């Protein structure tokens, strides 16, 4: 029976690791199939004070779903799309284990031809809705559509005492609570269901990929783009960057990646790629494209060499390409980890808003070069959410890489007084929490944790490292008897 709590065995080994490539440990695991089972399991574990780590699809890259002892509750069997409602905006209610891909298929099946979708689309299609909400994950179109929170009207959550909460938006207070839970990395409760707000796709879309040889050229383009953006009738939906190292990684693995294997190779002379997605009416897109054409010519990017695709299918191919950048970096990490399992993913995903694009790249490059570390940079240009991934060849480089990540965070903290990151804190970055949340925010989180999970059973080690530091080993062993 799915509500059963199984003792950990070798066959559950895969549930000890996520895409951060850190390895955890646990004494038991469960795969509840519905909300009642989630409640029942939490209550059972509460009696023995067994800590619980919640898992969706384990695609997180900060170790949030990796257990540090105790019990693993994996929600992959909660996969029902429960209902559709046609409010002002259409909405769909799903269980937490439904993946983004399954959600999209479900929406397409229900609203055949009406072109509805759920805007927060992190590129990993297997990510679960529960995981996406817990990490407030977002996609490349975040600057256009806004935060994930905007597209959630209600959630159901089982707290650390096994109590079910239904949290909607009927009052400002309730709405604030809902917004707090989204992105709280499973510390306040286990999201079991969510009602998601859908939008209609834009009338037409173009995906344009510009290539640049020099950093100065792309910097001038980004500057030019930002200067004229207001006049571009707001039809730029996404701006994504990838550097040559990231492109080389994709090219080396492209043959094995079905969705992109037929894309042509990118000329070696190009060191920077900038993808712009335009959406809206044909007329507005054409007007914007004409402006971009002139800008590209001024900045030394050949519009004859730039790719320009149209329509949903072709745009999906471009998204797949950008997803593969992230995927190939993870594959690289996995390969070196096989040689030395102490090596894990090393990524900085710091926002550097208002910094000129070139300075952003140099922020990462300069220190990496000083440390003689290989890095690949990609990510959103708007808001400067660039991800710098360190590509260590061995453990010595890995150790220097860890220090480099700390250095970058400290530098950003000194610049901005607070560091905004994109992929959550999880366990990998919990030593950086002091840079990411102010003291006041941390205190508020502690108070909320006390209210929803007074026994501190849920997702220990996420965000707050104290959870793991003060672990009571007897507590962690407790699950073994279940």
């Amino acid at each position: 029976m799915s509500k059963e709590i199984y003792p950990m065995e070798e066959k559950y080994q895969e549930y000890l690791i996520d895409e951060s490539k850190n390895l955890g440990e646990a004494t038991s695991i469960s795969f509840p199939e519905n909300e009642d089972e989630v409640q029942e399991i939490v209550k059972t574990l509460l009696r023995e004070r067994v800590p619980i780590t919640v898992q969706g699809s384990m695609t997180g890259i900060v170790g949030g779903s990796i257990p540090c002892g105790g019990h693993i509750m994996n929600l992959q069997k909660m996969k029902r799309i429960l209902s559709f409602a046609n409010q002002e905006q259409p909405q769909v209610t799903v269980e937490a284990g439904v993946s983004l891909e399954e959600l999209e298929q479900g929406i397409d099946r229900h609203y055949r031809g009406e072109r509805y979708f759920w805007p927060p689309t992190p590129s990993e299609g297997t990510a679960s809705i529960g995981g996406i909400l817990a990490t407030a994950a977002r996609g490349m179109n975040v600057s256009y559509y806004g935060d994930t929170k905007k597209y959630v009207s209600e959630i159901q959550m089982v707290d650390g005492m096994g109590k079910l909460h239904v949290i909607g938006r009927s009052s400002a207070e309730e709405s604030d609570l809902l917004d707090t839970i989204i992105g709280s990395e499973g510390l306040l409760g286990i999201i079991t269901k969510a009602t998601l707000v859908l939008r209609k796709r834009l009338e037409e879309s173009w995906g344009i990929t510009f290539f640049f040889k020099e950093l100065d050229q792309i910097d001038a383009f980004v500057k030019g783009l930002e200067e004229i953006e207001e006049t571009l009738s707001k039809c730029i939906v996404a701006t994504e960057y990838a550097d040559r190292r990231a492109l080389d990684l994709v090219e080396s693995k492209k043959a094995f990646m079905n969705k992109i294997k037929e894309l042509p190779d990118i000329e070696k002379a190009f060191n920077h790629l900038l993808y712009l997605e335009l959406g809206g009416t044909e007329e507005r897109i054409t007007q914007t494209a004409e402006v971009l054409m002139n800008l590209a010519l001024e900045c030394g990017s050949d519009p004859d060499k730039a790719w320009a695709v149209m329509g949903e299918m072709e745009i999906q191919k471009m998204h797949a390409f950008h997803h593969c950048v992230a995927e190939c970096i993870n594959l690289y990490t996995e390969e070196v980890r096989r040689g030395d399992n102490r090596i894990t993913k090393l990524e900085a995903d710091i926002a550097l808003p208002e910094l000129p694009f070139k300075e952003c790249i140099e922020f990462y490059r300069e220190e990496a070069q000083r440390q003689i570390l290989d890095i690949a940079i990609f990510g959103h240009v708007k808001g400067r959410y660039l991800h710098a991934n360190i590509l260590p060849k061995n453990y010595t480089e890995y150790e220097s890489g860890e220090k480099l990540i700390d250095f970058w965070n400290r530098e950003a903290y000194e610049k901005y007084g607070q560091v905004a990151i994109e992929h959550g804190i999880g366990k990998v970055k919990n030593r950086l929490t002091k840079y990411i949340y102010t003291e006041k925010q941390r205190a508020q989180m502690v108070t909320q944790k006390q209210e929803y999970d007074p026994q501190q059973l849920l997702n220990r080690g996420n965000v707050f490292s104290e959870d793991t530091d003060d672990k009571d080993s007897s507590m962690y062993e407790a699950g073994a008897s279940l």
Partner: protein
Amino acid sequence: MIKIAVCMKQVPAYSEGDMDEKTGLIKRNGLETIINPYDLAALEAALQLKERLDARIDVFSMGPKRAESLIRDVYAYGVDAGYLLTNSKFGGADVLATSYTLMQGIQVIDDYDLVICGKQTTDGDTSQVGPALAKWLALPSYQGVMRILEVSDKQMKISQDLGKFIQFLEVPLPCLISVNREEFLPRMPSFAGRLQSKNKEIHYLALSDLADKDENHYGMKGSATKVKRIFPPAQTQAVKAQFLEGRDGAQAILSFIRKE
């Protein structure tokens, strides 16, 4: 200069769940359309020739009015002229009627040195339109072309996939070839081309523009075959391939077997 005609078709972008399990019919309503991927290879072959010698590329497509987006799209690749054969009388055509209509359209425009077709379409899958068109045009035809090794305005040297063998041939122009997709992977449409395509004219060819105006030779009426039933193949579940090596690989296989 050699004159090249490329035949291309717009097809529905199928995905999982688009076929009605009971009737076997494609639920076309709301489906996005794309250029038949095999025809993009035909266009790529033409574009490669244009890079090697002085050439003009015209594209011919038979389809409903909305297929004009195909003509727009191919202009973004650098096509010189796009012709859309569109008329209510052309609907429901089989291989015979489709190839006949294309022949009529091609002949009314020019005498082409080379006609290039894709291997097949993703919605009809017969691979017959190319050879049938060659027959109507009274041209020699070569299927499974893998490479065009040499080309002049009089002849070409090609390699042809014959299953067990690869055949090298010198063929005189004019002729018709159908190309393999794997060897002519399509390039990306360029941004400059995409913008220029906005100002290019789409040429429409209706029944009245063709030499043979007898509607009995076109569409459903001109078709010799009728589809009795289409049914989907048995579903197999997609499984994500994993590439693991050494101890990790062995461990993963072992835990998989145990789970089973």
